[in-house]
């Protein structure tokens, strides 16, 4: 995968078709460019290494130093990294997640970059990158969430993609009758349960209600929230989810699907690469949008955006900005988001989508069938403390649904304290 990407990117460089070449002509970049990236999973890592290498090849006078940090570890290390002797470019996430660093003045305001004409192609995420009226980073990728399922198993039992909740439950019952679990999930690190809540809540009560809940404007003990949990509980009571999921990480839950013990997985598109690595072919795998629960509300979709930022203490601001131009250019975004790279969706509107059925479906879904709105995900939409207490409660609910009243009371107590 790495070599394909490298050769194709090298070809790209040789052809001189990067959007940045014009700007680079003005003055040669020199010195060092220090990048700290959290793209530590195998496929993203290869992409990031390719990016650094090609950017270095474009600017021979520049020494590009790339440090790749474990993705989970980076979520806490970023604070130290931004403090003393910061790098020039870092990875982070869009929306509320930028808040602490923007408030503390650790991210550089790059509104001037966004004012350049090339950046109009990124307009769809400008809102997610804007805080306090300025832009603080650039997106390089986003990806859809949805249900990835074993098409061969569905065919075997004569099932088709469900479009509403009744069909969903009926499918699930058929699978269970045949000894196959409907869903695999690993909730050890909690966030996977957040995806389920995002979907069932937004399908039950709509995007606006979900975001109001995220902002702390609705009580957790509200009847509408209870309705969400009641819908969720239908699946739990059927035994739709694999047993002992509280012990597994999301990766450890994959073998259940690969071995055919579970038929589907509500996940982000990044899981496709892992499923293919596990030996599933594209004939066995397929994707469907999370089905309608309440026909009165429009579809809302989780599509988290991953980003690059410049720390305000960056030493080589010129090179850092040039790098952001490079990663947001249509050609590079097409390249890095292709099936051979990240296998995700490019943000640049002029970029093309790779010929990959999951990307094509995801792109179509997000462009044409997400009228409700785009959610950034439970742990990015909700305030940090609310998210951590919330996801713990969701995990408990999935194991002991009878504890619901106690869980909701606890969440409500937290909400009142945080959003007072």
């Amino acid at each position, binding site marked *: 995968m790495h070599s394909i990407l490298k050769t194709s990117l090298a070809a790209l460089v040789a052809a001189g078709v990067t959007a940045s070449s014009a700007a680079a002509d003005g003055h040669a970049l020199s010195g060092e460019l220090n990048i700290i990236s959290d793209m530590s999973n195998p496929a993203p890592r290869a992409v990031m290494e390719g990016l650094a290498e090609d950017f270095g090849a474009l600017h021979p006078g520049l020494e590009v130093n790339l440090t790749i940090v474990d993705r989970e570890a980076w979520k806490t290390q970023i604070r130290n990294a931004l403090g003393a002797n910061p790098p020039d470019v870092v990875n982070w996430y869009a929306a509320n997640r930028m808040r602490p660093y923007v408030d503390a003045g650790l991210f550089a305001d790059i509104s001037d970059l966004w004012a350049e004409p090339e950046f109009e192609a990124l307009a769809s995420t400008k809102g997610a990158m804007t805080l306090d009226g300025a832009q603080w980073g650039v997106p390089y990728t986003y990806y859809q969430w949805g249900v990835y399922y074993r098409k061969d198993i569905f065919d075997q039992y004569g099932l088709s993609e469900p479009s509403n909740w009744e069909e969903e439950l009926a499918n699930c019952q058929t699978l269970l009758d045949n000894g196959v679990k409907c869903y695999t999930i690993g909730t050890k690190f909690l966030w996977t349960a957040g995806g389920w809540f995002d979907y069932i809540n937004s399908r039950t009560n709509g995007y606006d209600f979900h975001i109001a809940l995220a902002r702390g404007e609705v009580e957790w003990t509200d009847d509408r929230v209870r309705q969400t949990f009641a819908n969720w509980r239908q699946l739990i009571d059927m035994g739709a989810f694999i047993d002992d999921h*509280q012990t597994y990480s999301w990766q450890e839950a994959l073998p259940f699907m690969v071995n055919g013990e579970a038929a589907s997985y509500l996940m982000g598109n990044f899981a496709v690469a892992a499923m293919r690595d596990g030996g599933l072919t594209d004939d066995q795998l397929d994707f469907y949008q999370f089905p309608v629960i309440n026909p009165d509300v429009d579809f809302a979709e989780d599509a988290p955006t991953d980003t690059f930022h410049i720390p305000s203490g960056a030493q080589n601001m010129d090179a850092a900005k040039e790098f952001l131009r490079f990663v947001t250019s249509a050609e590079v975004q097409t390249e890095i988001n292709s099936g051979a790279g990240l296998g995700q969706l490019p943000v640049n509107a002029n970029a093309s989508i790779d010929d990959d059925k999951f990307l094509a479906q995801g792109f179509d879904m997000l462009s044409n069938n997400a009228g409700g709105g785009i959610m950034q995900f439970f742990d990015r939409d909700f305030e940090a403390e609310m998210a*951590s207490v919330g996801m713990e409660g969701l*995990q408990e609910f999935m194991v002991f649904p009878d504890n619901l009243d106690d869980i909701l009371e606890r969440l409500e107590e937290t909400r009142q304290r945080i959003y007072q």
Partner: protein
Amino acid sequence: MATAAPNRGWYKRNEIAITPWLFLLPAMIFFAVYVIIPIGQSFWISLHEWDGLGDKTWVGTANYERLLGWGDANIDRKFETSFWNNIKWLVLYLLAIPAGLFIALFLNQTVTGIRFYKSMFFFPFVISQVVVGLVFSWFYLPREGLLNAVLGFFGAGPVNILGDPTLATYGIIAAGLWPQTAYCMILYLTGLNAVDPEQVEAARLDGAKGHKMLWYVILPQLKPATFIAFVVTIIGALRSFDLISVMTNGGPFGSTRVLSFYMFEESLSEFGFRMGFGAAIAVVLFFIMLGFIAYFLYSMYRDEKGAH
């Protein structure tokens, strides 16, 4: 020589009084900078609300009220769980002392290859806690784990120890006991080397054997080893952080948290950065530890005094 006395410098005149302090100075500076001052800072931070980046806001004792349930607030449930888990750790971890003693007595013999056996028993203490945690979490895996394979062989149902909120803490303590027992064993093995053979001989002549010999003759001579084993085990129980982090990450639903893990979660984890509240937990943990430290210091002081 005596004529030079009035001309001696200030240092020369006070040499005897000053030199000990000069030798103590580096240690005192480091102890102050890395231990005493941070303790004071923790107290100070615990009276604020602070995200670690921006400005601190003074909130007085609000963090403690929330944590301990002073006034009209309910006691913080996570704190309650963590506190009781700490107690479980402290009590059950002490099992490492008798277990270590037993293995040490068993290995304290001269047969071919005893050094090899001893090092094999000591092996778990050499590997990192993180590795111990990983090995045990595989051992406990609900389907593939060795534990369930063994239980299945005897017809007992599968258990998911780390996924069950009532069992998970005990599962982690059992993992922690493995290296800790090895540590206590090594302490007792060296202690047994120092046992006076003449006393054993004399006791034997008087007809002592079996557990009477152990209880009245051997154990009193092992008292220094027992004290050290007690100290390191209590300290080990209080720093159970790494095993918990690796094996359950505090879950399922926070049932395996201990105070140190809760403190880390509130102040330094992905969804944390509530430095004030985290510092308040640290202060409470400090007072718990202070109880033990005071006891250790007192018993050491008593022993010193008894020696003279």
